[in-house]
């Protein structure tokens, strides 16, 4: 077991875990943050995506020990005082979420995209989200939601 310290959604946290335990499992099992989902478990679907030091990563591919000292943001940390984040609001209004499994990863990928490209082109949206698979929406409503979020200045 290793003692691992990191910041999760602005809270300092210390856990005891096997160093190779996947960050995804630490989030879900140790910290009960079940927003990140397991889809493929091999880095292709993005359902487990979180932000680590501001960068989009797939938490199923991160050994817990490599999160030592990191700042991690999950979907649970995005809303402010139980008010939806503007990106979440746009997904809601545009029908960008259906079954919801991919949605936390989609929203964090959108957050990362809008950080880098506050007014993305459709191509930049497609590339920024190409690691996030959705089997419900057909993507068009997600793209619309992202365009609305960009329009609303969600990147801050």
């Amino acid at each position, binding site marked *: 077991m290793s003692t691992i310290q990191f910041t999760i959604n602005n809270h300092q946290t210390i856990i005891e875990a096997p160093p190779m335990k996947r960050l995804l499992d630490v989030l879900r099992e140790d910290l009960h943050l079940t927003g990140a989902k397991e889809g493929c478990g091999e880095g292709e679907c993005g359902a487990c995506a979180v932000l680590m030091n501001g960068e989009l990563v797939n938490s199923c*591919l991160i050994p817990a020990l490599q999160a030592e000292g990191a700042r991690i943001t999950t979907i649970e940390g995005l809303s402010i005082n139980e008010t939806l984040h503007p990106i979440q609001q746009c997904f809601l209004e545009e029908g960008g979420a259906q079954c919801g499994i991919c949605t936390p990863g989609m929203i964090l990928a959108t957050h990362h995209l809008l950080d880098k490209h506050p007014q993305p082109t459709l191509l930049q949206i497609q590339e920024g989200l190409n690691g996030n698979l959705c089997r419900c929406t057909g993507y068009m409503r997600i793209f619309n939601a992202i365009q609305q979020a960009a329009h609303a200045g969600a990147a801050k």
Partner: protein
Amino acid sequence: MRSNVANYELIAPGSLDAVLQILASSPDRYTPIAGGTELMVALGAGRLQAKKLISLWNLEELRFIDATPDALIIGSGATFSDIRKHPVIAAEFSILAQAASWTGSIANQNRGTLGGNIVNASPAADTPPVLLAYDAEVTLISARGSRTLPYRKFHRAYKETALEPDELLHSITISRNLYGYKSYIRKVGTRNAQAISKVALAALAQMNDGRIEDIRLGAASLREYPTRLIAAEQSLAGQTITSLTIAAARAAVLTEARPIDDIRSTAKYRATVAANLLEEFLHALR
């Protein structure tokens, strides 16, 4: 079947020197892990053989990109995102930037490293054909010192490289003296995003008075490791580009390619498409 993570050890000594000391002196064999985009997949699938791992992630001694007047030096720990962001790579090494951009998704590019892409030694990896076309050099480091060799001599057999057990890939060096070279890259996969290539070709050529003065062809998924297409290069050196020299180059590719049938494609498709890609490049050189 998921692996039992309690059976795995991971240490993160935090500096390159400390890692090299452990690789040199520990009686246990440690397997380096950087961004985890390969080994963590194996762990999740229950097929990660190595039980003792040593973390290279974010070691500052390996995560760098330096441009000198003559060369570009990329630390093995530089991520695909680092590569895509670098202004000299964007301006002068467009096929490297292109290959980095189609290696996995943004989340994978934020974690996957150039060194990992090379050392993992997959025949289908995205950046090795580019590094072969640029005729890059690789520098290997250990507690005993460092050595540099041409990247084309790094791969020896399927998943077998020049690395000794106590060595790490330190950096990749590419000459910036590419004035007048034309470059080409194309990856053929099932879809644009995320797909592992069925076949890929990266190429560089220098023309002089209508003749090919220098040509270098790097290919993925045509042999058991990333490979230069030496026979095709030799058939083209000094030639003008005509239907005859194109046919000879296509034939040369078919003699040296040893593709396989697997879940992603067939040997026949791979060999034919590789010849088509080369022909496309040659047409563009005319």
